[in-house]
């Protein structure tokens, strides 16, 4: 028996990031504390940049890889590119040292002496960098997986580091650890469904590769109960990851509890990866079963939009508002999958690409508004920010308008493309719900804007902290992207349209 042939070139981007993550672990273990931060950040940024370069080099690839367990095609390239860009921006925020977002020693018990000692002596651990790199590599594998088992493994590679990262917050550590534990337990719970579903599908299709499943559906007509049960359970696992209702409950707690740079990273990267995987499954593997999954996804999409937008109105914590907003956006994104057309595919990728910038920028701004104890996430204390820090408030306004999908921001282009695609495919109910939900959603985004500009500032020590160049760069890149892709989105749209094809 011959050893299987591995295409190292086209798997390069993933391998580079994975290798750097391993190097990061070694650095953390063996390098003296003084040089760790610089080496860790250097390795991480270099790895992501190199991986991106390699990705650009292989951008014309369209083939299966690693014995058909992966598919490196245009869709993968776009998604991996998005993951790398958002991963880079997330890393910039994580590397910000001015704020002490991360606990000095994650292993120390909250409130214990060790923790206090580590904090006072400034013994900052830097394990967050290799963790982030592992998460990025998982997020790159996830949309590339062409096999249920690879998909499962990459899901875990993506999730496990995120569970840890969620618990690293310096401030309100108990909240942070609780969020991490919740995320882990629920993640494990939904992973079990996912695996169970995979087993069912394998039982019916006799294969775990997407091509095999696709073929078996064509041959059998797809009316087999086991296949459908498997699909339903698989759907649960995926919907958990994209935080669609009713699998969304973890999102606000985790978004709130995690260190904000991690929230920014998670919000953008996980969404891209999870929707990327979902697209490959629904469009490619089980596209033949559209009659069975479309009605369910329509219902879930509508419920998700409704829950996300309506409950966001009642929130008083900025991070929870943004979490519900992320839930609502998952609802909007699902309409792209429901469309099941080339337009829907393009639109989903465009939406993900534009959304990532806006959401990272939003959370980056959240890290800036602080008082002596750390970030101020109570919305009432953001009142009057427009008067004290017009530039920050202005940029935040831009991001919020982008999330609301107001014209001339990238959010509008994404929403327009995705709703148009869904409408063209004849799923009008979901579009009407989407338009209504957008209108409601705009209300709570604008409420924040109104609050920043039209209320009097409260004198309670809340102020905007001047960040280092890394956070500034992140915000600037995100703001420019949000604006430019709103006014002149054509180059991005053309690029994605011409790339987005599945390898047959």
């Amino acid at each position, binding site marked *: 028996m011959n050893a299987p042939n591995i295409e190292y070139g086209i798997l390069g981007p993933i391998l580079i990031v994975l290798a750097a993550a391993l190097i990061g672990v070694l650095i953390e273990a063996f390098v003296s504390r003084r040089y760790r931060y610089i080496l860790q950040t250097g390795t991480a940024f270099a790895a992501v940049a190199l991986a991106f370069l390699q990705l650009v080099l292989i951008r014309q690839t369209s083939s299966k890889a690693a014995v058909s367990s992966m598919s490196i095609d245009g869709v993968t390239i776009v998604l991996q590119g998005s993951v790398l860009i958002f991963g880079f921006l997330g890393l910039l925020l994580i590397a910000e040292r001015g704020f002490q977002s991360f606990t000095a020693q994650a292993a120390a018990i909250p409130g214990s002496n060790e923790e206090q000692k580590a904090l006072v002596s400034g013994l900052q651990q830097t394990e967050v960098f290799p963790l982030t790199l592992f998460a990025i590599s998982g997020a790159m594998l996830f949309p590339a997986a062409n096999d249920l088992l690879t998909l499962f493994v990459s899901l875990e590679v993506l999730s496990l580091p995120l569970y840890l990262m969620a618990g690293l917050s310096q401030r309100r550590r108990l909240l942070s650890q609780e969020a991490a534990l919740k995320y882990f337990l629920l993640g494990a719970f939904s992973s079990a469904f996912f695996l169970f579903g995979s087993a069912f599908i394998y039982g019916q299709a006799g294969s775990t590769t997407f091509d095999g499943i696709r073929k078996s559906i064509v041959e059998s007509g797809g009316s087999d109960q086991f296949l459908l049960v498997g699909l339903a359970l698989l759907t649960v696992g995926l919907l958990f990851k994209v935080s669609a209702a009713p699998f969304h409950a973890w999102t606000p707690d985790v978004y709130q509890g995690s260190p904000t740079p991690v929230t920014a990273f998670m919000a953008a990267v996980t969404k891209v990866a999870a929707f990327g995987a979902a697209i490959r499954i629904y469009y490619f593997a089980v596209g033949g079963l559209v009659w*069975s999954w479309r009605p*369910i996804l329509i219902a879930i999409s509508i419920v998700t939009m409704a829950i996300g937008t*309506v409950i966001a*109105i009642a929130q008083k914590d900025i991070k929870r508002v943004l979490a519900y907003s992320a839930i609502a956006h998952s609802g909007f994104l699902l309409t792209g999958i429901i469309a099941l057309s080339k337009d829907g595919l393009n639109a989903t990728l465009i939406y993900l690409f534009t959304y990532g910038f806006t959401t990272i920028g939003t959370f980056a701004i959240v890290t800036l508004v602080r008082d002596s104890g750390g970030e101020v996430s109570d919305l009432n204390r953001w009142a009057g920010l427009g008067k004290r820090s017009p530039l920050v408030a202005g940029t935040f306004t831009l991001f919020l308008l982008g999330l609301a999908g107001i014209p001339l921001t990238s959010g509008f282009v994404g929403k327009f493309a995705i709703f148009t695609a869904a*409408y063209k495919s004849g799923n009008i109910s979901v579009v009407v719900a989407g*338009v209504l939900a957008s209108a409601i959603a705009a209300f709570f985004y604008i409420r924040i804007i109104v609050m920043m500009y039209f*209320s009097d500032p409260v004198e309670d020590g809340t102020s905007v902290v001047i960040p280092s160049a890394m956070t500034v760069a992140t915000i600037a890149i995100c703001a420019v992207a949000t604006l430019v892709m709103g006014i002149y989105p054509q180059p991005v749209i053309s690029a994605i*349209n011409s790339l987005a094809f599945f390898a047959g």
Partner: protein
Amino acid sequence: MSLGTSDTLVYLIAIPLFSSAFLLLGGRALDRVGHLIGTAASASSFVVALIELNKMLGRDAESRGVTQHLFTWINVGSFQIDATLLLDQLSICFVLLITGVGTLIHIYSISYMAHDIDRRRFFAFLNLFIAAMLLLVLGNSYLNLYVGWEGVGLASYLLIGFWNQKPTYATAAKKAFVANRVGDVGLSLAVMIAFVQFGAVTFDGVAKGIEAGSASSTALNAMGAAILLAAVGKSAQFPLQAWLGDAMAGPTPVSALIHAATMVTAGVYLISRSNFVFDNAPTAQLLVVIVGAVTLLFGAVIGMAKDDIKKALAASTMSQIGYMILATGLGPAGYAFAMMHLLTHGFFKAGMFLGAGSVMHGMNDEVDMRKYGALRKVMPITFATFGLGYLAIIGIPPFAGFYSKDKIIETAFNAGGSKGIILGCVTLLGAAITAFYMTRVMLMTFFGTKRWDSAAHPHESPWLMTVPMILLSIGSITTGFIFSNGDRLKNFLAPVVDKHHHEHETELLAPIVVTGLAMFAVAIGISIALAKYSRKTIPASAPTDVTVWTKIARRDLLQDDFNETVFMRPGQSLTRVLAFLDKRVVDGAVSGVGAMTLRLAGDLRKTQTGYVRSYALLILLGTVAILAAILVVTV
């Protein structure tokens, strides 16, 4: 109608837009010259508009429209949207109004806002508004219009909330926002319907699609209704009218520009622009007429009860726009008259708002007319210009409003059948009430005895404020005659709004009879007002022993109470219930149901609401639901 191309249209928008950006980014360094730059930008745009008008008049009547392609905005698969500007007979009217009246208001604001430390920012927002409004009327597709539509919304919130020291102002801005969002849903739906039915969102594409018969009448009626919803939100028409009165909290020049002359009339523009939809959608057209007729009376009745001069004018604006909307609902005969009333109204109402601003300027920002009185001697220019606007709005010949309103009343009577008679009577009644409440405003402000606060020292405003008022009042005198003489405006607009040259329908009443009736109605209104307000002294505070009808009118015909009861409270409750469900009820189900458990849970974990086990249960329930659904689908 063939369209030429032009490469100068973009300057109309670009000049104020760049000026706005320059003023905002330039910072404090520009404080001394910011107002001059802003005014110059608006004036330059006006000059460009005049040049365009001159060019347009030089072209043949059938090929006067020109377009300019800027860039391809969105291109998704088979679907392409261009950012293209379109200047035709309809849009040039608006462009001239926006830049012309806009420039006068800029000049006025130089003096009006002289003591405001943020004057530069104010002018930046004014310029932004002008640019967005121009984009709205120059876009060649529903989507381009939508961009401008949102832009004027944004600019107007910034301007309404400009003096944001008081919470009421922020509330006003929010209210305007919500009403507009409801309207915007209408516009998005209209765009969607247009796209699905015709595969195009340009006005031209949709018109051609309708002509080719590629849409059912249901679809056209739905699109018409969606457009109407958008217009209702933007133009403060019934039932989304509540925001306009509150929006008066903003600086008075803003009220004159946005809430009298330009933005609130965007709905009239949208409906006139969509004439090809409404001409083929009788049900939607009927809805337009009803909305117009109801608002016309609604606004007029509110106007009778207001003591705040700006709110009285706002109610009157609502009512006058009701006339315009009504006219657009009357089909090809009505569009031109709606436009004519829109333009004349732009002059006289902006003039009166500036007049009100001038009065407030002299009276320590007092807006209560019960504290005015006998101002005609101390503010002669304001009195004269406001008075000319007054004569125009109530429709005394030969002032501008006479021509435009008279035509609308006439067209309403000619609508045919009982509809014509009802509409005719409504418009006549509206004219009578208008005469009543405007006379009341005049008497309370400029005549009678002094009821000033001891601190008030009224004086005439400086020339920078009076000159724009004088120019606008000249418009209030002359524009009506200029537009209606020889049906000039009607013929000018015909290629856009009346392509098929509809002949006049049968006349129910001879024009001279209609004019006579209208004059009679106006005379009644004036007489009642004179009887009521010129003899007796006016109490300094509003009398409380009034009929329940007066009370209701003072409360804006209960519009806020209605909104609160019907929309806001249920909405808030729904939000609370959903949030509650999300947090607690699932947990209750897990723990064996019961209030005890819930209370215990609440006590135990007040800070944290989420239990992992309830989340997990939710996931399980969701899974069961999905499994059930997928199996049901197969059976």
